[in-house]
């Protein structure tokens, strides 16, 4: 039975491999994202289109109608059938995609993933900024804003959210090393996915700790809520608020000085990188550790994972442009 399968996959692979040769020499790249229609992935699509035009390849985005991983499997199956050269994916559920990505690779298609370091069946996974670098970037900004004085608090969306806590770990490590005089007022608070909870917690902390010099918030609503509390108390600028947030939601608070700043990564850049990496793989280029790539800059290669250090700063200058993109 297994032998049958192998033979059949082989035949299918041969058929598929011959298809693009007959069609055209132009590279075809299909990128399957988590869900179509959201500002984040609209920006990614823009990046894909821009880079496709720049490199003269045929690249397009497939955005499923819901975040059900089953729909991503279907989209990838159709891309295999279509005989594209490269499949890019931002997985909803890395495990679910492994078997179908294995089939894609068996058919000779290059596979690139994004935000999925644990995927096995890919050629490369790329991250625009590693967990550690993003944490450190926040730590640095926070240290500059507070001048390493006073005490601080850390918010995360939930104590079990892996990415947010890893960012917080890296940021706190940075502060412990570079600002030995600073103290965390208590354990981290799991409030950063709620504006209200972040605001209330911040009001309480300001009351309880007169030496509070800043809030580090890793969760989409944390900086917003914290900044509102700081603003209500008339402490804008005195209590630093650093963290990642959506530009559209936070731009007013940034302009008013209540949010100090933060870092994210750019979906637009990620879209471009999909196309550029895809074209490189099709041309048969190898990627090596420490290489300087046009979009990613100098990269670190760990296994199949490409780590760039391209955090995108949320500052008074950048928020308006990002908000225009709907981010």
């Amino acid at each position, binding site marked *: 039975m297994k032998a049958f399968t192998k033979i*059949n996959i082989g035949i299918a692979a041969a*058929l598929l491999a011959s298809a693009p040769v007959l069609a055209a020499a132009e590279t075809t790249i299909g990128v399957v994202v988590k869900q179509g229609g959201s500002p984040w992935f609209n920006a990614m699509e823009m990046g894909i289109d821009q880079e496709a035009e720049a490199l003269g390849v045929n690249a397009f985005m497939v*955005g499923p109608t819901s975040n*059900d991983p089953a729909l991503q499997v279907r989209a990838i199956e*159709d891309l295999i059938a279509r005989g594209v050269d490269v499949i890019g994916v931002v997985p909803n559920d890395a*495990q679910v995609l492994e078997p179908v990505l294995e089939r894609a690779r068996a058919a000779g298609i290059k596979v690139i993933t994004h935000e999925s370091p644990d995927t096995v069946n890919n050629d490369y996974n790329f991250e625009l900024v590693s967990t550690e670098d993003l944490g450190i970037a926040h730590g640095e900004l926070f240290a500059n804003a507070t001048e390493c004085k006073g005490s601080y608090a850390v918010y995360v969306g939930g104590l079990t959210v892996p990415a947010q806590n890893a960012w917080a770990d890296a940021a706190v490590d940075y502060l412990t090393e570079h600002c030995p005089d600073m103290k965390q007022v208590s354990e981290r608070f799991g409030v950063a996915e709620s504006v209200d909870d972040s605001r209330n917690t911040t009001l309480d902390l300001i009351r309880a700790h007169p030496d509070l010099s800043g809030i580090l918030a890793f969760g989409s609503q944390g900086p917003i809520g914290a900044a509102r509390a700081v603003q209500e108390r008339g402490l804008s600028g005195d209590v630093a608020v650093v963290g990642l947030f959506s530009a559209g939601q936070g731009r007013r608070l940034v302009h008013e000085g209540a949010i100090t700043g933060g870092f994210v990564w750019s979906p637009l850049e990620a879209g471009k990188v999909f196309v550029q990496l895809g074209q490189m793989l099709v041309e048969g280029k190898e990627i090596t550790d420490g290489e300087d790539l046009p979009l990613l800059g100098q990269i670190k290669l760990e296994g199949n994972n490409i780590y760039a250090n391209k955090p995108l700063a949320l500052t008074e200058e950048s928020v308006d442009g990002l908000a225009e993109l709907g981010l």
Partner: protein
Amino acid sequence: MRNLSAKWSGDRIELAAMFAFLAAVILFFSIAAPNFLSLGIFRSMAFQLPELGLLTLAMFIPIIAGGLNLAVTFSANICGLAAAFVVQSALMNHGIVAIPAALLISIFTGLVIGMLIGAMVAYVGAHPILVTLGAMILLRGIGETVTRGGDISGMPDVFEVIGHGSLFGIPVPMIIFLAAVGLCFYIMQFTKLGFSIHMVGSNPKAALFSGINVNRVLVWVYGLSGALSGLAGFLMLTRFNSVRVGHGESYLLITILACFLAGANPFGGFGRVLPLAVGLISLQVIASGMNLMGASQHLATVAWGAFLIVVMAVRAPFQTKS
């Protein structure tokens, strides 16, 4: 006797109409989409269709009986979870044995869940929408509690032979689906139970007075539906090598769409299995064809909706006549 022959020919017309729609859709995409008529595309569709197809069959039987089973997708998840749990805790190193074991556990779990739902519908007398909506939320809650929203993944390698393998060039999931279609066709068309299901759906009071044990039939209706969901859960497990509550969630409304597309009467009693299978293939052709053209996935949803409305409109005059 004359009535019977008239009904049969009505079925034939329905089936022929569905084939005509399918042919029209295939023709359209052969012209519009590049490379549509290739082996790769048809293999891709044959891999994608079965999970949605099985869930649609699971939805179809309750609809014939005048009900609805909103719990099909989450039943499938729970069945997959049960099978994955047993395989991981006891059968990881037993090779091929894990497959029939997982299959039986999935189907049995589905059967039990379905029969419990059926008993609620039959003996409590609540409307099937309420009962199955409750069951859907209950099952999702149970699944999320047990797994804490995570997944069980990493099945033995043999599972891939089912989910991604082929036998004589036909994808194994497709073979499973065709077998399920054959079984449903046989049950619905040629057995006493199938006949009773149609009668109960058409008029439960009349069925009761003509000596059909309506309650027992209803328990079997949802039992069958649950077992088919379980089969779908098993198939998803083999295809994704992983199971989590919420996989396939987006299929729920599409299964109902497919049933009505195939001429199932929303008020119960009427509808046949074969037009359903053909209708499902049409939907898959539309989805894959749109993908091939590089159209937005949202546009594919638009096309599905438009297709349903067109089919309904064309069918309407024939239905009022009978």
